[in-house]
């Protein structure tokens, strides 16, 4: 039964995607299949999280091949938390897409590919083998290429060329690092690698491996100086696609960084300096980029980069409190970013523009929406008591106790920039009087059929609900994160679980 429990979120995504491929032409049915599949995945992930919290780390060896030789799937409380949040985000975006996505794009298979993307993401969280992690990354990346180009408009193609090139390069670099790791240790199982890398005598080679892996994951999670593909491409696809990209994709890169630099490589000064310097520069460059943008989606895209820096800085601090903050921040960030991107989609449909100069008057004309959208927008900043505040507090306390004042300052500056960007957005879009007449021929929100309006509203409500749930469950989440951070920093439990179970099966 462990198998179904552990692989549940992954298998359900695959089953949903296959069912959706059989229903390729029935786009009405596809919406329902996707919703049911995602709702089941949320349930499965919730059960998995509950089981992991009560029983501890779960392990399954694919094909019953013992641990260092076969492929392991591992869930600890870190990955279980992320799996649950990713499914909730998936459900919200699936609902929103049911309302906002054009039939034209649905006919080219938006939903099946969307579920393959989610399968790739959940696979990456489950993988206990670094080559398997690479494969799930590819599943995710290939699906994201298709989602990005679906529709084939000029701006989309232009964005996709950059996105494709950089992400392909990242895959190649990732594979290069894997080849080196295999050459050094002769294994690819992460638990086994952790033990063997500690014994390698040529430390410089290990550091080179760490650096190459960091470059690969750095491109995927958009850190300084390799982030420029992100703002060049994220504003081009339909808003549901941008929301799922902004919410989940870069965070999978951060997950990989956290996993690799806590489990695989022994922490040393080189890794700390590398992560720390990149983190501070990422926060600053992302924040400054966000400040100068005149396009709503672009400025939020730059904020993604800025906030990736927060998590990296907390990882580089390398103590339990800060790392717990980083894990909690990931949970918050997935929900908040998706919520904000969906909010930009709603704003676009309300005022017919993405540019600050042409937007305005939302508060006056749509007070109901304003009340709803204030929650994701200000969660992003972390105004207490909204969800961004608590993880940031934990990160800052951790940084202060470790006396990493550079990180402390950078996170404060980044938060301040985020506040300025979101306040400006609020003033320009909501408070400012409407600056343009109704555009003739534009499809405003009110012109959508009621069912589609309802789907978009529900999708938005799911994200707002998740955000409030994080606020309500903040103490619980913080204690889980602390526990998960402790397990990450001293990975004995992980190693024992993965390698011990292998020994039991051996005759």
């Amino acid at each position, binding site marked *: 039964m462990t*198998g*179904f429990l552990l*692989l549940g979120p992954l*298998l359900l995504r*695959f*089953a949903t*995607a*296959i069912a959706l*491929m*059989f229903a*390729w032409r029935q786009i009405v049915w596809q919406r329902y299949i996707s919703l049911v599949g995602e709702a089941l995945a949320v349930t499965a992930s919730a059960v998995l999280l509950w089981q992991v919290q009560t029983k501890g780390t779960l392990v*399954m*060896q*694919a*094909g*019953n091949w013992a641990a260092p030789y076969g492929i392991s*799937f591992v869930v600890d409380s870190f990955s279980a938390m992320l799996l649950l949040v990713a499914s909730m985000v998936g459900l919200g975006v699936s609902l929103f897409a049911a309302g906002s996505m054009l039939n034209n794009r649905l006919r080219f298979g938006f939903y099946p590919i969307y579920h393959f993307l989610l399968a790739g993401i959940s696979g990456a969280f489950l993988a206990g083998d670094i080559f398997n992690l690479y494969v799930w990354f590819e599943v995710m990346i290939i699906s994201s290429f298709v989602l990005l180009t679906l529709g084939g408009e000029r701006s989309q193609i232009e964005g996709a060329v950059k996105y494709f090139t950089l992400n392909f390069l990242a895959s190649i670099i990732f594979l290069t690092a894997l080849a080196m790791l295999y050459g050094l240790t002769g294994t690819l199982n992460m638990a086994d690698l952790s033990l063997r890398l500690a014994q390698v005598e040529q430390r410089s080679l290990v550091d080179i491996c760490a650096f190459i892996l960091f470059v690969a994951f750095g491109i995927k999670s958009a850190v300084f100086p390799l982030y420029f593909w992100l703002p060049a491409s994220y504003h081009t696809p339909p808003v549901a696609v941008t929301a799922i990209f902004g919410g989940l994709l870069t965070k999978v890169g951060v997950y990989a960084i956290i996993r690799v630099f806590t489990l695989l490589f022994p922490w040393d000064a080189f890794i700390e300096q590398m992560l720390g310097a990149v983190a501070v520069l990422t926060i600053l460059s992302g924040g400054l980029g966000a400040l100068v943008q005149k396009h709503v989606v672009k400025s939020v895209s730059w904020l993604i980069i800025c906030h990736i820096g927060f998590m990296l800085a907390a990882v580089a601090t390398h103590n339990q409190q800060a790392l717990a903050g980083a894990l909690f921040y990931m949970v918050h960030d997935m929900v908040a970013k998706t919520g904000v991107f969906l909010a930009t989609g709603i704003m676009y449909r309300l005022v017919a523009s993405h540019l600050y100069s042409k937007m305005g008057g939302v508060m006056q004309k749509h007070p109901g929406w304003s009340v709803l959208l204030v929650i994701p927008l200000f969660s992003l900043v972390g105004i207490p008591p909204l969800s961004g505040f608590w993880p940031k507090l934990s990160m800052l306390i951790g940084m202060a106790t470790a006396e990493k004042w550079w990180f402390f300052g950078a996170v404060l500056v980044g938060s301040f920039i985020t506040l300025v960007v979101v306040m400006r957005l609020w003033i320009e879009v909501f408070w400012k009087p409407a600056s343009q007449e109704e555009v003739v021929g534009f499809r405003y929100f009110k012109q959508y059929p009621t069912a589609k309006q309802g789907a978009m509203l529900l999708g938005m409500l799911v994200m707002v609900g998740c955000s409030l749930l994080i606020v309500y469950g903040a103490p619980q989440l913080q204690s889980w994160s602390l526990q998960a951070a402790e397990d990450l920093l001293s990975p004995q439990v992980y190693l024992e679980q993965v390698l011990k179970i292998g020994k039991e099966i051996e005759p």
Partner: protein
Amino acid sequence: MKSIILKAAAGFLLPLLLLFSLFLLLRGHYLPGGGFVGGLVASIAFVLHAFAGGMKKGQKYFPFHPGFLMPVGLLLAFLSALLPMVTGDGAFMTGLWYPHPVPVIGMLGTALFFDLGVYLLVVGVTLTIIFTIVEAA
């Protein structure tokens, strides 16, 4: 491409290549071969036919859109990977084997059905890609 030699040869090569692809598929578990290679060889058979006699002729051999093979292949591979989890205590993708060898095929097990799924998937994907590119050109 108008070549009488290629045209005549393609007619003979189609069944031969298909048979060869099945051979590769079946020997794949213990020897070089397998679903991916077999699927590529099978799709080459149809692509060759399409080259020799035009796209219409190549597609004629397919009673349905090759894209339909994708979900079928995926489902087959998915179910054969899932089966050991349903029937016993086996983990995901554990091989279940029928204890007696079957003539021609050899040992029968879930691995074969997984490979068959991969075979169908590869044929579906490759032909969909190639037919779509050629049609759009």
